[in-house]
């Protein structure tokens, strides 16, 4: 109980401390200390709770509800003011609607809402808490060095680092609250806090682009918020249910409207089509924000809430529709990523796509799908975080996010590029975690609804393309270049190394992770589970061993070979760097990746994704009402 309280309250306290302290050095120390403490607390939380099936905790303090309500209204008023100031009419409207719904709920039922248990801790909560605690701390640590470099490079952006870290830690608090709460009103409160954190952090640089995108994110997430409030309203007025666990248990018996509404909220938060635009726009934020909110944790809250209702959706038509939305997002997101030059956009589309896979599993809702979904959450969070942090370092040092500028990165930033390669391999290659998860997804689909396989199979193929062409670009060396890695600060290296090691080790730990954290959860809900056969685990470990031997072998391989210039039909002018072209002119050798904009372009495919998913969302609500 105390650990839970600590996880919720401590980051908030740290947040306020960081807000008021002006000195950068003091802030760094506090952030470092807080990062360590939060990680340790999360691990302690794991150890403390993992024996039991699940635990309920009750605070029973009425005034917390009132306090939350007051904060919500105040924040809503502030957003109302901001939306008027920046002339974002839609946001104004949505804020008004949402606040009205909140107030109506309080007025109608207000004090009579008695919740049996405020907090609920089971294995899924623990897994989510681990992700928030460890990745959040890693990113906090990373941000110290990153934001320092950021403000040196962007002297026009006002230094509001106190506010930045304040929001980050408030966000961590809210995330813990979200995944550990059972009280639906509290989940909603924390949900909204995460939406607002995203808003403030995206708009951090206060440029026109940032502000626009911040409001876009707010707008899309407000739709989700409204749906959430309506879900609570419906579930309380018809069933007197204000608890997550009771709503889960009620399942489809009382009608699927609250479930559909909450799935809708999850879809907006995890940027599935038709709501993907906000996540793409959110990439203007500083990289730690992209890593923390928009790939590893906040968007995971969206899929988390859908997964809570997975077993309700099992074998229902509405479940398949939700699954189709996820699958479509995976396919379209992966396809568009092929045509993107901007590294962060590739990562964003990949994130959207992988969240789509998780939603797909949630919609299917079988025990196999759940197993795959939780694995996906864990592996994706770690690996994507690593990739974003690496891209952030590249951006910091080389001031570019274009993949074409990352040619020969292996000579300019050797350690970072190797970490990126491991991260990228981790996203799609055997024997890393994401591949194993994808394998589990295929198995789950084949056993329940094979038609949805087309999303996974075709999307997965596109995935291979965009990752490998990026990897290839980084290892190419046309002419050796200066190593610029020296400028990277110590605080940034620790998270990078940690995440790289985790990405690799997790494959080995997968059986343990599965056995102790995932399988018990699945048995709790479904009374049956899948296991990876020992033979297959062994095969994966052998493959991993071979792959790990690669960097070691590179050191010695090929010694004594004769080195020549690449083949340019005999017209080499300067080794492999240039050639003698037409009219005897010296031309530089340029090698650019395929982006195939004509077929994989963002405009075309987004349109397709938007239209198709819009229909699916309508279908989802129609099925819920029927």
């Amino acid at each position, binding site marked *: 109980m105390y650990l839970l309280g600590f996880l919720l309250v401590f980051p908030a306290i740290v947040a306020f401390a960081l807000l008021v302290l002006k000195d950068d050095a003091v802030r760094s120390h506090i952030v470092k200390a807080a990062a360590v403490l939060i990680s340790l607390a999360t691990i302690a939380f794991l150890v403390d709770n993992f024996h039991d099936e699940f635990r309920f905790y009750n605070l029973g303090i009425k005034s917390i509800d009132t306090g939350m309500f007051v904060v919500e209204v105040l924040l809503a008023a502030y957003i109302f003011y901001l939306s008027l100031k920046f002339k974002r009419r839609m946001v104004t409207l949505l804020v008004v609607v949402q606040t009205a719904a909140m107030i109506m709920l309080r007025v109608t039922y207000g004090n009579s809402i008695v919740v049996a248990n405020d907090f609920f801790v089971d294995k899924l909560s623990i897994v989510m808490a681990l992700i928030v605690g460890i990745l959040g701390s890693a990113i906090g640590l990373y941000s110290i060095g990153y934001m320092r470099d950021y403000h040196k490079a962007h002297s026009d952006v006002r230094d509001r680092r106190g506010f930045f870290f304040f929001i980050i830690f408030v966000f961590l608090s809210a995330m813990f609250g979200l995944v550990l709460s059972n009280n639906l009103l509290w989940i909603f409160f924390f949900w909204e806090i995460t939406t607002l954190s995203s808003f403030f952090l995206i708009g951090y640089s206060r440029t026109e682009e940032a502000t626009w995108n911040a409001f876009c994110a707010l707008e899309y997430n407000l739709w989700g918020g409204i749906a959430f409030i309506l879900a609570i309203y419906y579930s309380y007025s018809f069933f007197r249910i204000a608890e997550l666990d009771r709503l889960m248990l009620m399942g489809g018996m009382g009608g699927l409207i609250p479930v559909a509404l909450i799935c809708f909220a999850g879809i907006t938060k995890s940027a599935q089509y038709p709501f993907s635009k906000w996540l793409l726009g959110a990439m203007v934020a500083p990289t730690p924000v992209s890593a923390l909110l928009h790939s590893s944790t906040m968007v995971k809250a969206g899929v988390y809430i859908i997964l809570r209702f997975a077993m309700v959706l099992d074998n229902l038509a509405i479940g398949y529709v939700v699954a189709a939305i996820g699958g479509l997002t995976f396919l379209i997101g992966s396809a568009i990523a092929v045509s993107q030059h901007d590294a962060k956009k590739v990562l964003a589309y990949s994130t959207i796509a992988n969240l789509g896979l998780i939603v797909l599993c949630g919609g299917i809702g079988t025990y196999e799908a759940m197993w795959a979904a939780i694995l996906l959450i864990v592996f994706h969070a770690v690996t994507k975080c690593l990739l974003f942090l690496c891209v952030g370092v590249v951006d910091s040092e080389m001031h570019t996010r274009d993949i074409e500028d990352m040619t020969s990165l292996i000579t300019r930033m050797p350690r970072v590029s190797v970490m990126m390669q491991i991260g990228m391999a981790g996203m799609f290659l055997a024997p890393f975690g994401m591949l194993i998860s994808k394998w589990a997804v295929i198995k789950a689909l084949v056993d329940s609804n*094979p038609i949805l396989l087309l999303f996974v*199979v075709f999307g997965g193929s596109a995935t291979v393309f965009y990752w490998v062409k990026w990897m290839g670009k980084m*290892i190419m*060396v*046309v002419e050796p270049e200066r190593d610029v890695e020296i400028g990277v600060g110590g605080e940034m290296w620790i998270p990078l190394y940690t995440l790289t090691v985790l990405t690799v080790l997790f494959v080995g730990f997968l059986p343990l992770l599965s056995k102790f954290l995932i399988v018990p959860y699945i048995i709790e809900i479904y009374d049956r589970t899948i296991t990876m056969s020992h033979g297959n685990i062994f095969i994966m470990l052998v493959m991993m061993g071979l792959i790990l031997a690669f960097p070691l072998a590179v050191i010695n*391989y090929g010694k004594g070979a004769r080195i020549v210039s690449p083949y340019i039909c005999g017209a080499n002018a300067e080794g492999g760097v240039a050639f003698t072209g037409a009219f005897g002119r010296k031309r530089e050798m340029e090698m650019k990746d*395929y982006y195939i904009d004509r077929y994989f372009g963002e405009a075309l495919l987004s349109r397709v994704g938007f239209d198709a998913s819009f229909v699916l969302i309508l279908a989802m609500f129609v099925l819920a009402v029927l």
Partner: protein
Amino acid sequence: MKVFLAISLYIVLAPVIGGILSGLDRIFSARLQGRVGPPVFQPFYDVAKLLSKETVVVRRSQGLYILYYLIFVMFAGGLFFAGRNLLIVVFALTLADVFLVLGAHKASSSYSFIGAQRELIQIMSYEPALLFTAIGMYLVTGSFYVSEMASFGRPIIVYLPAMFLAFIYVQAIKFRKSPFDLSTSHHAHQELVKGVTTEFSGKTLAMIEIAHWYETVLVLGIVYLFFGFNAWLAAAVALCEFFAIVMIDNVIARARLEFTFFSSWIVALIFGMGNIIVLSGLSKMGLI
């Protein structure tokens, strides 16, 4: 024990079989073109010659990627003939191909670079059909394990006729034969010098050749599974099918990238996914 034997046999025999098939391929093509053609064992003489040559590279580590390509092709094939999970075999094969592509990128040369990018598009093209094949087999036999598929009493081809066609369609990509030999090919008709294999020579090129032999045997092994109920028939079909592809190679010109990609995906969708949907529907209705 049986598994160990199967893997060892594969490791030792597959290059022999693959090499002989390659030799027969060359003789067959030659006769179609009105030539006599080289001796059957020519591929072995070629590889031996390659192994004796000096190692010449652009980047020192480029050969390591190719070594890993070879290792993982052997690994995939070994898994297959050991009767293990077909999905893992497909994933391992993709991993192997990725190493080839990375090696070609590492060679930092314009021709190998384009070859590598085209190879990636080829991978993207054949993967759906390959995955659908594995999935289709699971739907028929109830297992992803090759051992169960091979010992499945009934003719799998009857359940997966369209799937078989889809698989054959993308085989030309795997065998590097026209119309889908865009990233590199065996014969002298390559417009991008040698595509993926441009900067590789000597021992490394020998490794690519040997890896190709291993891969050929593995792919033919998958063809075998469709007719696994009768070993002789299956072997015969695999062989005939191989020579049919060689003949098509001699008859058809190379396709463009767009055609390769789109047609592969459309074929995989209609024939592969279609077969799966029909099969799945029929079994849900209790007809199978």
